[in-house]
């Protein structure tokens, strides 16, 4: 198993797409911090009434949201690119146990997703806080330790997206198809659900993957397109299901189909 994981790690770190994806996610985090510097200047020019409505959190959450898309694509490519080149047959000769093959890919993709997700998500949180200095934004008054777990969960959601992408890549075997499926789950379906008449927009909006970190953190989703009807434990149970259920189907399909 360790050898299979090592092989997957070697593949992942040696392809150009991984470097591009991680650089884009990191670059976006830097961009978020720059925007926070700008927000701090805007804050200085506002009067007291406007300041009570001026929030920094939507900006801080943007980093994790974009990382979800980036790492979802990384997960897709971990599987789909091997199908495109046919190298998956070579890989399966090297690791004939298909469940072990998928598990190794899942371990590497999940850990990469977790590392990048936490770095981007927490980086955007702390970076934006640092950028606004001591300015008392209405949503930044809690101590760092109080808000940090919420952003850590948002980093976990990035890993869930990476695993979801991997599972879709194995199931669809096509980068184009799987990336579009990831994009649908990431933003298009939540957008459609948001436009539904109530109460369904809130009900369905509460189980959208990108909105789960907010619910796990127990925050209101009023500023977003998602709902907040799930309790934190329920949301915490739904989050891993988004990765594990598709992975189970991917495992079945991989074991049954010709490569």
């Amino acid at each position, binding site marked *: 198993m360790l050898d299979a994981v090592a092989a997957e790690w070697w593949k992942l770190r040696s392809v150009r797409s991984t470097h591009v994806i991680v650089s884009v996610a990191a670059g976006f985090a830097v961009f978020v911090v720059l925007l926070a510097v700008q927000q701090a200047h805007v804050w200085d020019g506002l009067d007291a009434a406007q300041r009570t409505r001026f929030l920094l959190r939507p900006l801080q959450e943007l980093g994790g949201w974009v990382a979800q898309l980036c790492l979802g694509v990384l997960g897709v490519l971990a599987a789909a690119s091997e199908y495109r080149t046919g190298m998956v047959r070579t890989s399966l000769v090297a690791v004939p146990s298909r469940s072990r093959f998928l598990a190794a890919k899942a371990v590497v993709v999940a850990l990469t997703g977790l590392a990048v997700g936490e770095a981007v998500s927490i980086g955007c949180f702390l970076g934006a806080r640092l950028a606004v200095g001591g300015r008392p934004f209405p949503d930044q008054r809690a101590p760092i330790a109080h808000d940090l777990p919420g952003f850590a969960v948002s980093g976990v959601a990035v890993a869930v997206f990476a695993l979801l992408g991997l599972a879709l890549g194995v199931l669809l075997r096509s980068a184009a198809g799987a990336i579009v499926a990831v994009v649908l789950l990431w933003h298009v379906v939540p957008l459609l659900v948001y436009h539904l*008449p109530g109460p369904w927009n809130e009900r369905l909006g509460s189980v959208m993957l990108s909105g789960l970190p907010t619910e796990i953190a127990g925050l209101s989703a009023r500023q977003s397109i998602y709902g907040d009807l799930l309790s934190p434990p329920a949301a915490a149970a739904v989050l891993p299901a988004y990765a594990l259920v598709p992975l189970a189907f991917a495992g079945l399909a991989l074991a049954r189909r010709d490569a």
Partner: protein
Amino acid sequence: MIDALAAEWWKLRSVRSTFAVFGTVAVFVILCVVWSLYAAHYWDGLSQARRATFESAPPEQPLAIALPVCAVLLGALPMTSEYASGMIRTSLAAIPRRPVLFCAKAAVPGAAMLVAALVGLTAGVVAGEAAANGRPMRGFDASFLDHVPYLLAMAVTTAAITLMTAGLAVVLRSTAGTITTGMAVLFVVPPVANLLPGPWGERVWAVLPESLAGQMASPPGASPTRDDLSPAVSALLLAAYVLVALGVGVRVFGRRDA
């Protein structure tokens, strides 16, 4: 040129991904129908007072969200799938004049997307009108003729997105890269633009490709809330985007090894 177009049309209609894209368009047309039926049903259950404040997205809303995604796919795949398989070299052996091949590869999906968008949006709006069946629901009460300019603008914008993606695809040559970049422009840039300070958020929003449809012809019942571009300026801007993307595509395609 006709032969190149015919060849590209033959390729486009013979691959599975094209059916997946147009199948997605069809599914979202069905979603438009379901949407309209549900909105009408919902409206029936409301009190008079609630009906006065009822607001719903228009009947073509589900399709309007999905069309740009389909447009990006259809623009990217004819180019990037040939790079992935190496068949681009065979295509270039058959049609050595690269500008001709590139234009055919952009024009055929662009035209197909234009037709699909027009048909799908018309079907969605007609279905919405049938579902509303004379109910004075906001969002559904405009007549079909009022919708026509907006539908045309949406369809043209969708086709333009396909053409722009074709230009991007020949630069990036990667399916994953092209589609992800397209999705980032469609979905990541607008919320980022919203966070930009002062007038810049609205300025950036106004020049985004998907925002141009609503500025070329405003949807029925919508009142312009931001400082919109005039219809002529937004149409020119869209044309400029397409020309720049195609120009870059022709140049890059002509200069690089396949």
